């Protein structure tokens, strides 16, 4: 390309207490392109982003903006220079209005007081520039997550933005919302903004991105034009394993017992919860791997939470091994061997400031009660064996769980639940937001557990994944079960049409 890049990173290196996070990485972005930064967790993606957006200092190397060395020492300085970021966890204030959120810290002033009329006008302009039609005076919390995401983008671009960084912007959006986001991205692109789109969804990367830069273990692997890079090649470059074993990804656990001989493990009879779930019947068989497919808000998570005592039932009843049970607390379900792993790893999973060891032994300890502490050497044994079995890295039981990568946190969470030897394990999006390598490992692990005879309910937004490892697939839509399949008798396209069935009935 003969134009100069808008951002150029030269020889960027960052060390954290001896660990090399980035090692002499070069990176560039051009105006009016959508660029993707790909790599496993720990590849250095977020470190590079942080260096570009002023959240972190480089130990060596430089970041040039339009060829000049600009002050990027703080996020505010980076924003003034024209680099804005929208983070994965939306950092807006739910108790303020949309206009206040967009203009926060930059409100137009008159005589030292905030000029609210102009504030609303400016916010309105930022929204309409993106083609978003909402009232700037409305409360932020009154909008859906997806809309909040767009508001965060409106906030990011309401300054004179040259580079917009979107860190996992689609991780909690459904297909329509993703389309809406992409429309906004294309609009910004046509205005000459350089957009860095970081996502684990290969599908989306290939749909929206012009070029891809791949990092691995803190080192630059290469920069590629999207249309010239095959997916398999991309995955291989990210993983760095020359023979990426696709065969192993496609195996499904043989069911432990012949389908006909299976006993019903859990039987839900007309269970319902106001605003969450319509009355629903569901039988879960001993030793099966049941996949739940559906969009966000379809009821897939809500059903899982009703089955596991996280939320209480408004109606209907649960039969466990043929005996009716009522759960008011997850603790009661756990006592019957029913464990739930939440889709929100950070807020409902990991205890960030406790060590890996304490996290792994938490559920077991909770089950034993306050006055029967697990002896320290037993804790060490337990955590060491789970760290080894699930290949948790770094293999340090005393490391704080919050410092681990997403994939490893998921494994710690799994270890915690597996340590209580559950008989029904409900996994809600265990592979969300983790790198490809960890994803494959988790899928394999789930299959292995099923082979060992554990009953598993597996929820994922990725239909392909559900279809690949489940023995039976149930589709939810609009808070009820709408279909049930043998995964061998259905294609992903058919499943997609059922999951996303339009109102017109086609």
């Amino acid at each position, binding site marked *: 390309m003969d134009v100069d890049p808008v951002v150029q990173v030269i020889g960027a290196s960052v060390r954290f207490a001896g660990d090399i996070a980035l090692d002499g990485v070069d990176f560039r972005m051009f105006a009016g392109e959508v660029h993707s930064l790909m790599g496993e967790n720990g590849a250095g993606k977020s470190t590079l982003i942080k260096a570009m957006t002023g959240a972190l200092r480089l130990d060596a190397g430089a970041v040039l903006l339009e060829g000049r060395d600009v002050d990027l020492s703080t996020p505010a300085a980076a924003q003034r220079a024209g680099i804005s970021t929208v983070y994965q966890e939306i950092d807006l204030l739910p108790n303020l209005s949309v206009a206040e959120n967009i203009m926060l810290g930059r409100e137009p002033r008159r005589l030292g007081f905030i000029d609210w009329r102009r504030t609303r006008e400016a916010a309105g302009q930022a929204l309409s520039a993106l083609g978003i039609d909402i009232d700037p005076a409305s409360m932020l919390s009154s909008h859906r997550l997806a809309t909040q995401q767009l508001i965060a983008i409106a906030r990011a671009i309401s300054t004179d933005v040259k580079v917009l960084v979107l860190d996992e912007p689609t991780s909690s959006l459904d297909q329509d919302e993703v389309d809406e986001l992409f429309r906004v991205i294309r609009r910004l692109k046509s205005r000459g903004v350089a957009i860095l789109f970081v996502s684990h969804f290969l599908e989306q990367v290939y749909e929206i991105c012009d070029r891809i830069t791949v990092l691995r273990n803190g080192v630059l692997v290469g920069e590629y034009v999207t249309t010239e890079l095959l997916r398999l090649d991309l995955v291989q470059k990210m993983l760095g394993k020359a023979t990426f074993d696709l065969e192993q990804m496609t195996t499904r656990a043989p069911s432990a017992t012949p389908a006909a001989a299976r006993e019903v493990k859990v039987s839900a009879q007309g269970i319902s919860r106001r605003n969450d779930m319509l009355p629903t019947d569901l039988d879960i068989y001993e030793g099966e791997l049941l996949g739940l497919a559906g969009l966000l808000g379809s009821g897939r998570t809500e059903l899982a939470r009703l089955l596991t005592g996280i939320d209480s039932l408004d109606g209907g009843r649960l039969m466990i091994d043929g005996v009716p049970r009522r759960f008011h607390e997850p603790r009661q379900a756990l006592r019957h061997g029913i464990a739930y792993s939440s889709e929100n790893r950070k807020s409902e999973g990991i205890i960030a400031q406790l060590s890996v060891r*304490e996290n792994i032994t938490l*559920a077991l300890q909770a089950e034993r009660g306050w006055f029967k502490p697990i002896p320290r050497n037993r804790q060490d044994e337990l955590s060491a064996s789970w760290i080894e079995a699930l290949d948790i890295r770094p293999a340090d039981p005393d490391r704080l769980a919050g410092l681990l990568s997403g994939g490893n946190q998921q494994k710690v969470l799994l270890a915690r639940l597996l340590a209580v030897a559950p008989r029904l394990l409900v996994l809600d999006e265990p592979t969300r937001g983790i790198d490809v390598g960890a994803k494959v490992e988790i899928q394999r692990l789930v299959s292995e557990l099923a082979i060992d005879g554990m009953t598993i309910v597996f929820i994922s937004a990725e239909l392909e994944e559900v279809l690949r490892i489940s023995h039976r697939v149930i589709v939810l839509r609009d808070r009820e079960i709408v279909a049930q399949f043998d995964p061998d008798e259905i294609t992903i396209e058919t499943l997609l049409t059922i999951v996303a069935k339009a109102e017109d009935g086609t």
Partner: protein
Amino acid sequence: MRKLLKHRILWPIGALLALVLLNAVSRPSFLSITVRDGELYGSLIDILRNSAPLMLVALGMTLVIATRGIDLSVGAQMAISGAVALTIISDSKTPGSLGTVAVAILAGVAITFIFGLWNGFLVSVVGIQPIIATLVLMLAGRGIALLITGGFITTITSAPYAQMSQGYLIGFPFAFFVSLGAILVISLVVRRTALGVLTESVGINPEASRLAGVRSRGIVWSVYGVSGLLAGVAGILYSSNIMAADANNAGINIELDAILAVVLGGTSLAGGKFTLAGTVVGVFIIQTLTSTITFLGVPPAVTPVFKALVVIVVCLAQSRRVREWLSRIRPTRTPTTTTTTPVVERIPA
């Protein structure tokens, strides 16, 4: 992790030593301990004795704060337990008998334990914010104490009761053994059972803990009970010191000193990880400071200013940002060495 914990408690210990040193230099008698009739006397011994009520209250406060809570009612609860105990003794025909005193103490402590459980009920079951839930008793508690004493300051004469705070046991003030006992019992209960880690878990992430099957409600409920119980014992010590149930002044503002001691010790008000050792050091800092100020002849009304100064210094020393800032203005600015390691290395082993 253990290194970090040691690291964090180092600053409060340093502050305490600096205070002791300051006192030792300005009045050499500060460090001297004399033996009279087999009993120890001296400024340090006074600090051990006088710190007992604050120690008890601060230990309970540490646990409450670990669960993301706060207990503002501890001072008022001290007034209640003192009022109950002294009313029982003064109404008794045998105020000097050991049995009467034992009954009085047990009754006083039992009542504040119940009040503590009431706080815990409001917080963990009803779901009221801790600061509001305990504010209720903070405001009402002294009224309740006045009701019990009939609006008077009840005074008594009872040798066994006076023993609680004024007496000696194997050379040391009896009150010191009470606080030592509380430290040992709570440390043992917290670290030898799973209560410590479960409390931290609930404080760090209540919802994740619930999903993991932790009885969060029971834990939150019981820490307020413990806090009430300890405040009750503190109230006994206080009233035993003046041999009067002064509902208006017993434990006044002690909740603030207790919160201060917890924070000085390095436990975050945000909840989660807590350190009992830090709190113990924090209590000694505050008590030494009070004693220093009294010695310097500063009018008591100005005392809070000095406390505020110490708090600022210790909190600044604990602030990561300040330490980063300090390490940055040092001349070594070669980019490859500006990691976090030098901060750790500067700590003497």
